[in-house]
């Protein structure tokens, strides 16, 4: 018996439950009630409201990514300079919340922003339903995903390179910008990919924190598929998903490009 036989159950599974379901997106985009039509696809594509939501989501995801990077980089940097055993322990503390159900954590933020914080500040009304609240909870949810790859990359940097840079007369700031930062680019790139696209598609946070006022692209897709009246509009949802997949594809290409640049740069040195 050849060993490759062992892969056959998986290959059947993969075709049935990974490849075929993907085709349904394209099938339902041009199929309404069993007949082929392009009208739904076209009316969705030419709806300016949908493009506006996509733009708002991209901007929101961009802000989330930048804030996560600015907050997360120092954390990863400090951790990478600690003694290994201490850093190991503290980094576990940073990653524990990731294992806790994120819907439950978002629900907690809803409670805090709706009742607790306004009461504490003596404010009228609530803090939910504001752009700032949605942004903060998005940052909260994605921060560990930024810290993890950054920490992994920074911890692997050979400390003798930093010593060499100092020996050659560079001060701390210069060493950081000329040695540490360029060497940590792969971590930054994978951190960005782990935050940006998930942030565009995050529909839980806008739904629970934004009170439906700050709907992102993920919410549009959710609303197209999950309506209260039962079966939603698959054609609209599928078209929106195809656009999303294109966004994912383009951003993956851009990220790969940056990653490759870095590798070539590394070789030149």
């Amino acid at each position: 018996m050849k060993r490759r036989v062992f892969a056959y159950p998986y290959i059947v599974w993969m075709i049935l439950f990974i490849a075929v379901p993907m085709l349904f997106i394209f099938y339902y985009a041009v199929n309404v009630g069993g007949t082929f039509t392009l009208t739904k696809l076209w009316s969705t594509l030419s709806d300016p409201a949908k493009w506006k939501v996509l733009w708002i989501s991209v901007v929101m995801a961009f802000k989330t990514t930048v804030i996560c990077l600015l907050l997360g980089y120092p954390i990863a940097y400090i951790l990478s300079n600690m003694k290994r055993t201490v850093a190991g322990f503290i980094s576990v503390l940073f990653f524990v919340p990731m294992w806790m159900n994120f819907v439950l954590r978002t629900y907690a933020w809803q409670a805090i922003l709706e009742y607790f914080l306004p009461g504490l500040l003596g404010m009228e009304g609530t803090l939910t339903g504001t752009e700032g609240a949605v942004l903060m909870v998005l940052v909260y949810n994605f921060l560990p995903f930024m810290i993890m790859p950054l920490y992994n990359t920074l911890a692997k940097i050979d400390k003798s390179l930093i010593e060499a840079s100092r020996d050659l007369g560079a001060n701390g700031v210069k060493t950081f910008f000329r040695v540490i930062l360029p060497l940590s680019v792969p971590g930054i790139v994978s951190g960005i990919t782990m935050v940006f696209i998930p942030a565009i598609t995050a529909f839980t946070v806008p739904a629970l924190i934004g009170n439906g006022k700050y709907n992102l692209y993920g919410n549009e897709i959710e609303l197209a598929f999950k309506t209260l009246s039962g079966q939603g509009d698959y054609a609209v949802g599928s078209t929106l998903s195809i656009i999303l997949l294109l966004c994912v594809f383009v951003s993956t290409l851009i990220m790969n490009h940056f990653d490759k640049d870095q590798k070539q740069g590394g070789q030149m040195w």
Partner: protein
Amino acid sequence: MVKKAARSFKYVYLALMLFFLYIPILYLIVFSFNDFSTGRHISYANIGQWKGFTLKNYSTLFSGDAGKALLLTLEIGAVSSVVATVIGTAAAIGIYAMKKRTRNVILNISQLPMVNPDLVTGITFMMLFTFVNSLLVHLGMKQVGDVTKLLIAHISFSIPYVIFSVMPRLRQSSDLLYEAAMDLGCSPMKALFKAVIPDIMPGITSGFVMALTMSLDDFVVSYFVSDLKSVLSVYIYSSARGAKGVNPALATVIFIPLVVLLLAVNLRRLAKEREYEIQNKKVKLKDKGGNIQ
């Protein structure tokens, strides 16, 4: 002086960030001891007003829908991760033995569920099951239920994680192991179970843990796949949007075992690392001693 200030600033920053990450968890744990009863009813909706200490939330936690959802989450997690580990490990062994080109094609397709946003994975499964169910109704057969749908979806998105955990171990392990076991008289199956699998066991274990984590953590896919019955995260989401709210005791029940487990695993790993470091030093010292002699 400056150095000292910088150093304490570092710790303050880390502490602040940790506080930020733990605020919602601590908040729920504190309010899990709050009395939520208003008259005869219990409403968790206004979870911001302290009305007195009680343990009632813990005694009522598992009696309602939350208990059912938690049980289903654990069942789906256990079954899907075991099945995914078996299929995924077998797949990795099989794929590894294939020609390079076929191998790369299959590995690339396997990456799809990992690269795809959860949202897309969720809706593709939703559409698949809607299609299959309408077909089954047409044929006068029973529809696919929520539990089966959840299981299929969870197994599907977990398998790639198992494959990509086992694959690196296979690369490290020797190809000759399987051949040698056969030469020594093992049947192919026996060679696999006696020689190959023990050698790649760490990869299988970490793949299993990944699959279990993915399943327990999932919200998006389960949300789209299930209609009536679903897992804990879906229950939390729909309760959070409704008027009733969520029993905050849920946070404690999830958090405490999680922390204990993670700390135990990591402390053991750290202890091992430390031991390894000490041994390394001893070896180095011995080497030096040898050189002097």
